[in-house]
């Protein structure tokens, strides 16, 4: 473990080179370097521009539907018999997940920068749908790269993107999942540098993306913090979120990082178990490496070749994680744990029956962790969990596993 003294604040990163401890950075081809420096400059300006912040807040309120509710899950709490469980209802956002928070922010930046074409990568399709949505709303042509495997298992989202006017390009390289889609999006960007804005969907990639995406998503944690103070008069004991690339997680975690009494847990996809290679638990079972513009924990072999992960959830099917999570893990502020496919599937069904909420398979991993922890906590303790997306997109996957004809 890291022996350096803990910082005064966990919220001051990254440094000017985009580093969170040893993680983060700008590991990109020279062709892209001027572009990400431009983006950083524009982001610095926009961040401190009241007009930009106002437009963001207005679109948040009237287009996304913010603030999202903080909901007390009464029956689940009763069923588990321990801590009080609250859900931050990001699945009620326009387009059905937290992804839209980031897309609205970045499309406003793209507009400011005079870009005329948007590209994005997507795994589960939630970010692809959110990207296609903001492109329709702001009149940009949009190309979404999506792994061929994901195109197949997330068919409803593919259709939604097409309806919204986006071009969906299936990527057959590798296993045809999120990692391969990101490679292909980077190849597009390096080719079309003049007019194209790359709308990255998670808090990863070269600086300033991890910081910028986090800041757009931190609205989740800021609201949740205010809402729980209003509902309970105090901060929660535990905050939980699922982590793929980690944007919904860093969004809810970040405003709580300096609250000493708040324990924070990130849930990785344990897939079919950590013994083999069929999982996506980058922190629990990976090691530091450099991919897609940043240094972070990766699933890789001894030769530095990146492994193909596995998760039942396309949105968690990525062999890396945002660099800030890697740092939060190393300094011990956030605990990262794996949840297996089957546990997530059970949690998915339990929540559907008990609360009348069909969660996406991604936050189902977080629910499974809550199911483990809540019974061991006192009844006066409080858990806040980020319910980052709705599960309509997953009913075909779940139906297939449960052996139901749809």
């Amino acid at each position, binding site marked *: 473990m890291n022996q350096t003294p803990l910082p005064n604040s966990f919220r001051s990163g990254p440094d000017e*080179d985009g580093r969170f401890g040893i993680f983060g*950075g*700008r*590991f*990109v*081809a*020279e*062709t*892209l*370097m*001027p*572009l990400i420096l431009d983006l950083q400059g524009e982001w610095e300006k926009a961040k401190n521009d009241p007009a930009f912040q106002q437009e963001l807040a207005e679109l948040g309120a009237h287009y996304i539907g913010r603030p999202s509710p903080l909901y007390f899950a009464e029956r689940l709490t009763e069923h588990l018999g321990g801590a009080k469980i609250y859900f931050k209802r990001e699945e009620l956002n326009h387009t059905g997940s937290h992804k839209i928070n980031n897309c609205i922010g970045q499309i406003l930046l793209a507009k400011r920068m005079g870009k005329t074409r948007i590209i994005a990568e997507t795994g589960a399709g939630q970010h692809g749908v959110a990207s296609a949505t903001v492109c329709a709303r702001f009149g940009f042509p949009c190309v979404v790269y999506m792994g061929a495997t994901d195109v197949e298992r997330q068919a409803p989202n593919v259709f939604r993107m097409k309806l919204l006017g986006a071009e969906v390009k299936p990527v057959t*390289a*590798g296993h045809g999942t999120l*990692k391969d889609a990101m*490679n292909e999006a*980077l*190849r597009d960007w*390096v*080719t*079309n*540098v*003049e007019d194209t804005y790359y709308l990255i969907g998670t808090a990863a990639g070269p600086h300033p993306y991890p910081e910028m995406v986090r800041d757009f998503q931190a609205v989740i944690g800021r609201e949740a913090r205010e809402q729980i103070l209003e509902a309970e008069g105090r901060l929660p004991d535990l905050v939980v979120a699922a982590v793929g690339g980690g944007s919904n997680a860093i969004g809810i975690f970040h405003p709580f990082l300096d609250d000493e009494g708040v324990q924070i847990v990130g849930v990785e996809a344990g897939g079919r178990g950590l013994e083999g290679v069929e999982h996506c638990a980058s922190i629990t079972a990976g*090691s530091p*490496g*450099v*991919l*897609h*513009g940043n*240094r972070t924990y*990766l699933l*890789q072999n*001894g*030769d*530095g*070749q*990146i492994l193909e992960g596995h998760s039942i959830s396309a949105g968690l099917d990525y062999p890396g994680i945002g660099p800030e999570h890697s740092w939060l893990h190393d300094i011990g502020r956030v605990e990262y744990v794996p949840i297996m496919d089957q546990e997530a599937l059970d949690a998915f069904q339990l929540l559907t029956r008990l609360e009348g909420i069909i969660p996406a398979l991604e936050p189902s991993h977080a629910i499974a962790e809550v199911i483990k922890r809540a019974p061991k906590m006192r009844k006066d303790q409080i858990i806040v969990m980020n319910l980052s997306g709705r599960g309509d997109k997953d009913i075909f996957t779940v139906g297939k596993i449960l052996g139901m004809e749809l």
Partner: protein
Amino acid sequence: MTARMDNRFAALKAEGRPALITYFMGGDPDFDTSLGIMKALPEAGADIIELGMPFSDPMADGPAIQMAGQRALKGGQTLSRTLELARKFREGDDKTPIVMMGYYNPIYVYGVDRFLDDALAAGIDGLIVVDLPPEMDDELCIPALKKGINFIRLATPTTDDKRLPAVLKNTSGFVYYVSMTGITGSALPDPSLVSSAVNRIKGHTNLPVCVGFGVKTADHAKAIGAAADGVVVGTAIVAQIAGSLTRDGKAGPDTVASVATLVRGLATGVRAARLVAVE
């Protein structure tokens, strides 16, 4: 720095022609064939060898080089096997400069210091690491220069005059001008644009400026070589290897010979380049 690179460029200058720099993927389709290709290159007219280090996620490469990397990895290639390839080659050739080209992660995982020591021992003269821009110089560039291995930087059409000094600051050996924004293996750009870009870079440095991305034929090599100190050919060679393989992806009977034939043709291109320039 190792002397091979400077000696080679000095000799080429005396000859009055640009260098032919040939890229191939180490271990494609297997170690022995790859070594055969490497040994055949100098005799066929290659002046500098770029030895590709396979990586699972080559973000700046087109399909031909992506597939070459996959074939090599499938054949069991690793970074230490790629170093071994160079070591074996050096047993019979101590003059031709070798530049290893690839992505940072395998080197990072191998360990930077250990890698540089082993690379020096294997007879490596330079490194091109696609995803290490000047902002990341502390990672590998500075340690490599300290050990005496050239760090060759890519300059691109997006590298403007303001940025060029930063890009050139810790560059040694030569400057690799990427002739277009895009991935390897795209179409050849207009030679006159390339020529003005090369002259722009030469206004900032005394290092040789070599041009790559899009050069596939002897005519291309001749046209691009008219203005540049070197012409890099990669995708065409890798595609030649791919085309020579048997149906199950194994080396064919003429894999090495067909690469040599292609390189001989390209070599006539660079040898004709300056004749054009003088006219």
